[in-house]
């Protein structure tokens, strides 16, 4: 086996070696059991005291969601104005300008939502101040928001009958102090000692060996890149994201970043099982998600290593695989591996340009984001999966003619309605967005806008359609990667994707929290011979089938017009 494939394998093994114990730790830590990080308690108590928070106040699901929504709304207002007036603030050594209102709108929603779609380039669109005080701040807090919401749901599912989801502030603060911050410090140190810049120096200038004058953007990037991956955020320091040699200088940093973005999503799934004292359920979900991941990953790696058939026809040597948009130090295998993980766990950082990947790779990337729960983002991946579980429970209940139950609570019309609405929301937002943009592109191509719609696309034909489909899919999934050829830095794209981002973020969090809260209030029914057990392989397979059927029905026509059509057009 060559060093590229062993590199992937090693990355995956290390991910499991960290992710599995981390899951057990998170379950214990959030349940309030004794863990070694209790030494951080004085710091946390200081935070609570300064904030006037009682971390032990019980919260029902409405109070829980209120706390979450209030603080998230606050960040939107704060970030929007700071981004617009960043040119008047300190830490702007490169003299970058303030953002326009539509760009600030898109950027702040995108970062609050843990999406990190970027319609600006880091080198010129933001300052060191906004990179740290807005974007990196939200890297931490949006990830912690997702984790806290998931833990509230865990708590509701664990207790027999309760109104109490636990305290939002408590989960939120501990996600930062006992998970995100300590691990970010470790990752940032690895990055900076491998060549990622970490000082506040501004742009540098030198004369190259050939005599050209070159400017180099720099800045305190290692700090942000650490949490960008750990928190499944994805919004990078530089325009080229983790393909940039200062953001991802060598194969060691590449492994570090790819491992960092997977450990919390894996840990949260297992933590679910351990927390509700049904560890088998956690492992069954882990199994379903891993199979889903491999089904997307193996064809991706094989299509990238196979190279571009159109270039193969030119008669050159493509033994290394497809190289357009990729970096030599990373190579196509690790880029393909990354592209699958970044789309399934909603990180959306890239170490190679997705727009230039092979047609079928684009299909797998899109599917990963559409399903969005093969591990999924920090906290929210589990929540998305819970929605699929509720649907699966409901369908199974219908098949055997019994009232559906989940973890000892009857699943009734109200919960199923919420789950159905959340499930239908994604295809609605993605397909309506793509339909509107396609319509505008076709019928108003010469409209007198800042960017003419006819100039939106960087590629003709099927691939151009994929660029639009990808943008909305990524927005809805809160992924943030893009087919970056799309001319998205204008009011049409900033506003439409901004709205989809925020709906695609909060409704899929509110839905599961409400379902969990409603279920937990109901009478507990002990398991009997007639109970549909949800921690079995059979039920895991059922959920998997529901995921595949729902997504195939929703998206096959759109996918057929984009990547699938492009693939067949290239077989000559």
């Amino acid at each position, binding site marked *: 086996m060559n*060093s*590229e494939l*062993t*590199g992937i394998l*090693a990355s995956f093994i290390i991910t499991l070696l960290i992710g599995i114990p981390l899951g057990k730790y998170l379950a214990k830590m959030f349940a309030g059991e004794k863990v070694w990080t209790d030494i951080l308690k004085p710091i946390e108590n200081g*935070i609570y005291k300064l*904030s006037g*928070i009682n971390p032990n106040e019980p919260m029902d699901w409405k109070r829980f969601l209120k706390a979450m929504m*209030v603080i998230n709304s*606050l960040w939107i207002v704060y970030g929007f104005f700071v981004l617009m007036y960043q040119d008047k603030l300190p830490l702007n050594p490169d003299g970058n300008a303030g953002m326009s209102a539509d760009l600030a709108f898109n950027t702040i929603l995108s970062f609050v939502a843990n999406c990190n779609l970027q319609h600006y*380039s880091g080198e010129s669109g933001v300052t060191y101040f906004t990179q740290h*005080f807005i974007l990196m*701040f939200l890297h931490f*807090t949006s990830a912690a928001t997702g984790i806290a919401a998931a833990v509230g749901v865990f708590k509701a599912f664990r207790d027999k009958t309760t109104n109490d989801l636990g305290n939002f502030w408590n989960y939120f603060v501990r996600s930062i102090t006992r998970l995100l*911050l300590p691990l970010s410090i470790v990752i*940032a140190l690895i990055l*900076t000692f491998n*060549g990622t*810049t*970490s*000082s*506040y120096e501004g*742009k*540098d200038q*030198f*004369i190259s*060996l050939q005599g*050209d004058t*070159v400017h180099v*953007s720099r800045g305190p990037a290692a*700090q942000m890149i650490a949490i960008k991956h750990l928190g499944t955020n994805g919004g990078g320091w530089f325009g*080229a994201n983790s393909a*940039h*040699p200062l953001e991802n200088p060598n*194969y060691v940093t590449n492994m570090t970043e790819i491992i960092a973005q997977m450990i919390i999503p894996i840990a949260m799934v297992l933590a679910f099982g351990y927390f509700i004292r049904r560890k088998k359920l956690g492992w069954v979900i882990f199994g379903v998600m891993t199979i889903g991941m491999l089904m997307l990953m193996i064809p991706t790696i094989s299509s990238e290593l196979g190279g571009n058939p159109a*270039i193969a026809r030119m008669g*050159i*040597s493509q033994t*290394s695989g497809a*190289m*357009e*948009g*990729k*970096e*030599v*130090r*990373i*190579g196509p295998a690790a880029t393909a591996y990354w592209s699958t993980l970044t789309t399934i766990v909603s990180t959306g950082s890239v170490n*190679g*340009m997705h727009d*230039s990947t092979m047609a079928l790779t684009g299909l797998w990337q899109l599917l990963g984001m559409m399903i969005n729960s093969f591990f999924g983002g920090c906290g929210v991946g589990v929540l998305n999966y819970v929605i699929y579980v509720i649907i699966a429970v409901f369908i199974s209940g219908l098949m055997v003619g019994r009232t559906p139950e989940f973890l000892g609570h009857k699943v009734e019309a109200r919960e199923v309605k919420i789950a159905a609405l959340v499930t239908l929301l994604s295809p609605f937002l993605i397909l309506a967005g793509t339909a509107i943009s396609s319509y505008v592109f076709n019928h108003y191509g010469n409209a007198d806008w800042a960017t003419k719609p006819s100039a939106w696309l*960087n*590629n*003709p*034909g099927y*691939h*151009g359609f*994929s660029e639009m489909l990808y943008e909305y899919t990524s927005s809805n999934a809160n992924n943030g990667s893009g087919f*970056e*050829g799309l001319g998205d830095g204008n009011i049409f794209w900033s506003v439409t994707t901004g709205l989809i981002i925020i709906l695609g973020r909060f409704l899929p969090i509110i839905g599961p929290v409400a379902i969990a809260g409603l279920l937990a209030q109901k009478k507990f029914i002990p398991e009997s011979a007639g109970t549909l057990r949800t921690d079995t392989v059979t039920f895991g397979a059922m959920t998997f089938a529901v995921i595949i059927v729902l997504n195939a029905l929703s998206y096959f026509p759109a996918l057929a017009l984009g990547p699938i059509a492009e693939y067949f057009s290239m077989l000559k």
Partner: protein
Amino acid sequence: MKTLIQSIRLTLVLIVLLCVIYPVIITLAGKLSKGGGDGEKIAVNGKVVGYAAIGQKFDKPQYFWGRPSAVGYNAAGSGGSNKGPSNPDYLKDVKSRIDTLLKYNPGLQKSEIPADLVTASGSGLDPDISPESAKIQIKRVAQIRKLDEAKVASLVNAHIEAPLFGPKKVNVLKLNVALDELK
């Protein structure tokens, strides 16, 4: 209202922790790294000629060439071509890069040209090329510089980095700096 005030206070506390204390710790630790957290520079006779991690434009025939760049190796920005695999204009670009290589490199066969030398990198700043991409340029560089081909070849071999995991690579700037020193 109470929730809002709690939110404001918590946000302020976390800003101090996450946006001041945390990054400053990393910056201070980074001072101990190679390059001091500013990026590792390469100097010739005390004059900085570039960054080890940042590729630069080499199009003169006496130097080893790096990969095509969608941003012209302007490191004040970064980015790839974002051309799709079936884009006809893009495929034309690749063809013309192949023709350029064939023109400048005597005796080069089309089938020897590695893909990385005719495709643009993701960042536009890729500092590396594959060992094969360096090897097919040895003849040209040696002829123009009137150097012994074997000598240039051994220089290239000395610059092949083979990490435990990941692809083999050659840093173009380091190779060219060493090439200038070769007499």
